[in-house]
């Protein structure tokens, strides 16, 4: 999952920037690597790819700062969906 997300970021959001070599625990947001608009694109990708819905109140930095955070969040959302 992490690699799939990294590939999306490198090829779609940061296309044209070379030698990125992103890692799953790299801070994407506070460094400004991805801006708000990019994050929204990323969320749309995550929703579609992993079949989750990100409610507006979850659109905060703690769930999307690193690729690992995202993976954790997706797992939590999926569990929540199953329960509900």
């Amino acid at each position: 999952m992490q690699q799939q997300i990294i590939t999306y970021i490198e090829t779609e959001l940061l296309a044209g920037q070379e030698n990125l070599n992103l890692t799953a625990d790299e801070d994407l947001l506070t460094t400004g690597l991805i801006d708000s608009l990019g994050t929204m694109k990323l969320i749309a990708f995550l929703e579609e790819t992993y079949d989750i819905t990100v409610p507006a109140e979850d659109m905060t930095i703690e769930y999307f700062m690193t690729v690992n955070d995202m993976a954790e969040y997706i797992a939590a959302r999926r569990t929540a969906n199953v329960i509900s």
Partner: protein
Amino acid sequence: MRNTQERKLSRSQTLLWTGQMLHPDSPVYNMAIGYEIAAVIDPAAFKAAFRTMVAGCDVLRTVVISDDATPRQKVLSLPDFDLQFIDLSDRPDPEAAYKMWSADRSTRVFDLSETLFDSALIKLAPAKFVWYFNQHHLVTDGWSLTVLHAEMSKLYNLARNGQLPQEYETLPFADYLDFENRRKEELTDSPAAAYWQQKAENLPPPPRLYGEKGQGSTGRAERITLPLGTARSEALRALTKEKDLRAFTPDMSLFNIFTTVLFAFVQRVSGQNELLIGAPSHNRPTPAFKQTPGVFIEIFPLTATAAKGDTFTDLFRKVRSEAGQYLRYAQPGLSSPALSGSFNVFLNYISGKFGDFTGLPQRVDWLLPDYIDPAHHLRLHIQDFDDTGEFCLQFDLNTAVFDEQKRQNAPAHFLRLLDAFIENREQPIAACELLSDAEKRHLIYDLNNTKKDYTPAGQNLLTLFEMQVKKTPDAPALRFAEEVWTYREFNEKANRLARFLQTQGVDREQVIAICAERSLAMPLAIYGILKAGAAYLPIDPQHPVERVNFMLQDANVRLFLSQKHLTESLKPEGVQVINLDSDADRFTAFSGENLEQKPQPQDLAYVIYTSGSTGKPKGVAVEHRSIVNRLDWIKDLVQLDATDVYLQKTPYTFDVSVPEFFWALQIGGSIVMAQPGGHKSPPYLLDTIEKYGVTSIHFVPSMLRVFLEEKGLEKCASLRRVFISGEAISASLQNRFFNKFDLPLHNLYGPTEAAVEVTRWQCRPIPEDALVPIGVPVANTQIYLLDDELRPVPQGSPGELYIAGVQVACGYLNRPELTAERFVADPFSPDPGAKMYRSGDLARYRPDGVIEYLGRVDFQVKLRGFRIELGEIETRLEEHVAVTQAVAVVRENDKKEQELVAFYTGEKVPNDIPFIHHLAARLPEYMIPKHFVHLPEFPLGSSGKVRRKDLPQSNFVTEKTTTTYAAPDTQLEEIIAEMWCELLPAERVGKHDNFLDLGGHSLTAIRLVSRIADAFELNLPIDLVFKNPTLATYAAAVEGVMLEILAEESGE
């Protein structure tokens, strides 16, 4: 050089170009910046660097051509531009010289087909230069400015060292055009497109900031710059780290905070809870686009609904959610005229920074070209261009909405809300103080400076009359048909009646009912009751007996003065009936001298019942001093004399009748009593005016409308003035009055609860769509426009009208709870016992302090001058066995008349007759609905309340006929119809088809004007079609322009 082929404009460019075409002479889209560099600049190197940049930057070589109203852009191969060097350093005041120069230069309008930028280097001092750079928005946006600034900074540095590159090119904007084209198809059915479609269909109306419509806006604007200071800026940055305010990025968190405060500001100054602003999306989805010069931004709306009692945190949550959706769906190519033209408040949060100029210290000055989009009323820019850590707010304020005072106050109001957010975001938005002490002083005290002492002091309603009797005992006082009473006769009769009443055990302040038809008996009863020291309660003989009995009981009435023919059928319960006619001989024995004991100013003078929301009418108790002030004030303002004849025609159950009964008799004039029912008959009124030489008359506006349509208005030669009150008068009606009469028209406003009227305005001709003001407060009266927290609303904003001062009634008879609810402590009075009356009316101040009436706060309505509490009708209707629930509304029928419509649930009744019978026994005639509509159930809102707005609009009025097709008549209509067919998605166009309904918008309008220009060599204003949207009206308007031109030409 790259291609010079013509290309279509991007979505955003098309919208900008359309805007420019709509305002062809406005510099509205000039984006001019002065980069003030505090260092020595080498002009030659600078010019060379600039030349290189222009040569290598496609957008700087772009022009826009539009021969056939379809705009295309073309990149010219050779730059025909040499940067100008201007040395102002030898001027006495170089800064001032530059200010003058830039003010002129930045407001020049670009010829789009020539060049879309302008630039110069200005020397202000040996080590102080300004790089002036102005671009048309068609080729730049805020982000692009930073890109070109960085490019120029780099190139100048190279030029200084003689290292300008031969080959130089910025990333091409053409790539974005390709990108947008490629995306078009994939966007068509995307969720994003659906989101914006849905949004466009549900946008709230743009709010009226400070109650202003922005009429006649040319877009002229002033920019007010407000630096936030370091402490506040740091506090804001600290907030972006708080758990509940955090977002993906600090900038987004700041955007959400500023949007919340802006929404709060709009809500507070407009009174509108449905909030709407526009904001730009930078639209640079790839790293390459982030480096590309050109216009990428597209503008999308954000909306939110503020609820009563919302804290900043509550509103912030709504904004955060909305902003999340905005970011998700704001994608290149999705903006539209419907979206970008929907709002009047624009928020531009700019995160871009310019930093230094190739290492040289620099300050950025963004120049407003004096104009903004005329549809925009407020544009708020938030920036820190110089990267100082301090936010700078720039308010571009449309001068059609913000006068000088508001331009000063509005930024301060915003700042108070921002500070409140920073200090404690858990506080309700409504709780924040918006106004300065000076503003409050102005609104509460300066505008209410009405103190006036009248003589003699301590008057009661009859003091001046009794004085006048001594002066002119034999002058006619009252006339009814052929019967005339002199002052002395009338006074003696009233004294005799008063003495008789006292023998019947009348005490001070006791309430005595009168139930009479209009005749001399009516004023006799009123004066006699007052002289006896009691208060009078007028009862309409037409009212159902149930309502009469309720009032008698409610007011604790023991004596009932009436006429024989009325009391025979109307049998009031629990009262002693005295017939003024048949019992008249019982009074004659008493002395006709004035009574020794006079009513005191604080004594009750009358009780008048008005419709009540709980289903029961309520008696308003008014003291002598209140109504005396009302009379003293008007006497001071409008001087009647002994030759004046006042027509008493208002039903005496309506408090407007009170001045009719007293005013003229205080100064030696006379009163003519109209025949019963005569007030409803214009021919009768005309004859009466002519016959008796009536000089003064009062109308409720709906009656004035009918009266003005009557033939024979020339019979009104004796009239000297007309008073109106009771409902809002429209500009068209008062203008119609001025077309017929050259007389003063006094518009008065006031509730029964404040002694008839409390404001006055002398009408004058005004535009048909303007509001007729209700004017300024009368003497010894204060009008406050307050919010729910009883604080003054900002000048211009709608507030509930409260009345304080001597005219405020004591309250509702025997209704302490209702009295406490409507008559509240006046917090602005030095007198701790002072009360103010809460009118339930919405009003606003014009900039000159004159008050405009805006409507009712609640559901109480006025129909034909009658105050109607819809709740009362509903309660009564619900008493009917068939009805489960009832809702009454006022609707305009297809004749533009207001009428009452009742909706009900329960058992469907085949016709209205049972309801009319039922209500006729309980309500006055004017409260009986015209239509009764059965519904299976009511539309309910989330609170469980009936959503009145969602009640059916039709099926009780004449069925709305769908516009039937009517073929064009004239040749001109045919030609234009053909053009519409080509431009609009319509198969055929008839006379009554509407350009806007057929999907026409600005761009189509431009194309239309271009076609007409080709066909007729006629240059029409683009907005002509918006003002005359049907085919027939548009063709007529076009013909009008043609005829005007012909007339001018033949005149030359």
